C-alpha cells in the first residue's frame, strides 16, 4: 500500500467518523441550534475529508477538481440552509434585536 493510498483510506475513515458524529448529534442534541451546529460542522468536515480522500485516488486532476467543486457547492448550500433555518427559529421565538451595520 502506497503512502497516497494509506492517506486516502485514513481520510475516508475520518470523513465517515465525522458523518457518524454529526448524525448522532442530530439525533441526540436537545435544541434545534445545537442540532444545527452538530450537523453543519460535522457534515462539512466529513464531506471535505471524503472528497480529499477520493481526490487522492483520482486518475486525473480534472476528477480532483470536480470533487473540490462538489465540496464547495455543498458548503455553499449547507451555509445558506443553516442560516435560513436558524433565522426562522430565531423569528419564531420572538427574534433578536438587530444592530444596524
Amino acid at each position, binding site marked *: 500500500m502506497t503512502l497516497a493510498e494509506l492517506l486516502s483510506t485514513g481520510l475516508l475513515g475520518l470523513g465517515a467518523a465525522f458523518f457518524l458524529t454529526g448524525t448522532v448529534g442530530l439525533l441526540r442534541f436537545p435544541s434545534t441550534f445545537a442540532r444545527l451546529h452538530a450537523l453543519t460542522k460535522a457534515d462539512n468536515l466529513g464531506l471535505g475529508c471524503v472528497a480529499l480522500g477520493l481526490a487522492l485516488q483520482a486518475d486525473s486532476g480534472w476528477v480532483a477538481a470536480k470533487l473540490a467543486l462538489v465540496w464547495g*457547492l455543498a458548503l*455553499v448550500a449547507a*451555509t*445558506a440552509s443553516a*442560516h*435560513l433555518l436558524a*433565522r426562522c427559529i430565531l*423569528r419564531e421565538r420572538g427574534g433578536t434585536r438587530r444592530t444596524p451595520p
Partner: protein
Amino acid sequence: MGLAFDLLLAGGLLGLALQVVASRGLFRSVVLFIALGLLMALAWARLAAPDLALAEAAIGAGLTGALLLSAYRALQPAEEAADPGPAALPRWGALAAAVLSGALVAALGWAALGLEAPAASAGREALARLGESGVKSPLTGVLLGFRAIDTLAEVVVLLVAFLGARVVAEPLQRAGPGPSAPGSGEPVLTAPLLRLVVPMGVIVAGYLLWSGGHQPGGAFQAGAVLAALGVLLRLTGRLQPAAATSPAERLALVGGIVLFSAIGLAGAGTASAVLAYPEAWAYPLILAIETGLAVAIALPLTLLFSGSAGLRWRER
C-alpha cells in the same frame, strides 16, 4: 462489498417506502418521500443508468418534493380547521388490500424471474443501429430517433398536466408558496447565493443539453435543472406569480412541441417517414428539438410549483 451496499440500499428503499405510507404526519411523509427519491437515484446509479439517476434526483426527489411541500403548505389552514385524520378504512380492509397487493407483486416478480432474455430485443437492435439515429448516446437515439413518438407524447402529457392544474387551481386563493413572513427583510445570504448558483445552474443545464448527444444528459435533465432554478427564483421572490400567461410564456410552453411536430411531419416528405429525420440533418435537428423541449419541460414544472398562470420578474 458491492453486495453489502446493494442490500443496504434495497433495505433502505423498502424501509423508507413503508415509512412514507405508514407514518402519521403528512409532513413527515413528504420529507421521507424526498429521501426515498434520493436513494432511488442512488439505486439507478448502481444499476449503471446515469440518465435515470439524474432524472430521478432532479424530478422525482427535487421537483416533486418541492411540489408536495408547496401543496402541504396550502393544505395547512384547512387541516387546522377540521382534521378528519386518515381516511377511515377498516382494519380488515387495509389488511386485505395489503395481502392482495403483496401477492400481485410476488406473482409479477415470480413471472419476471421465470422469463428468458429474448435473443433479439429492441434494445440490442437499437444499439446495433445507433449510427442511423445521428447521435452517439443510445438513450438520446432512442428518445428522439427510434421512439420519438413516445417522447413527443410525454411532453404533451406535461403540458396537459399543467393545463389541468390551471383549471383546478383557478378558484384557489393560495396555491404555491405564499409571501414571506411580514416585516422580515430578505436574509443576508440569499442574494450572494443566487448570484453564485443561478449562473452555475444555467451552465449545468446547457452542458446537460449539449452532452445529451454523446453521453448521459438531454432535454429532460436540462429542463429539470432549469425548473429547479425557476423554483429557487420563485421562492426567493425574484419571480412573482402573475395571473396571466404572457405571449412569451405561451410560446415557450408550446414551442418545443410545435417544433418537434413540425420537424416530425416534415420528415414524411424529406425523410422516409413521419418523425424520421433526413440523414444529413439528424444531429442539428435533434439538438434544436432538444433545446425547445428543455424549455417546454422547465416552464410547466416551474409554473406548477408557482401555482400561477405566469411569472414576472420582480420590479425593483
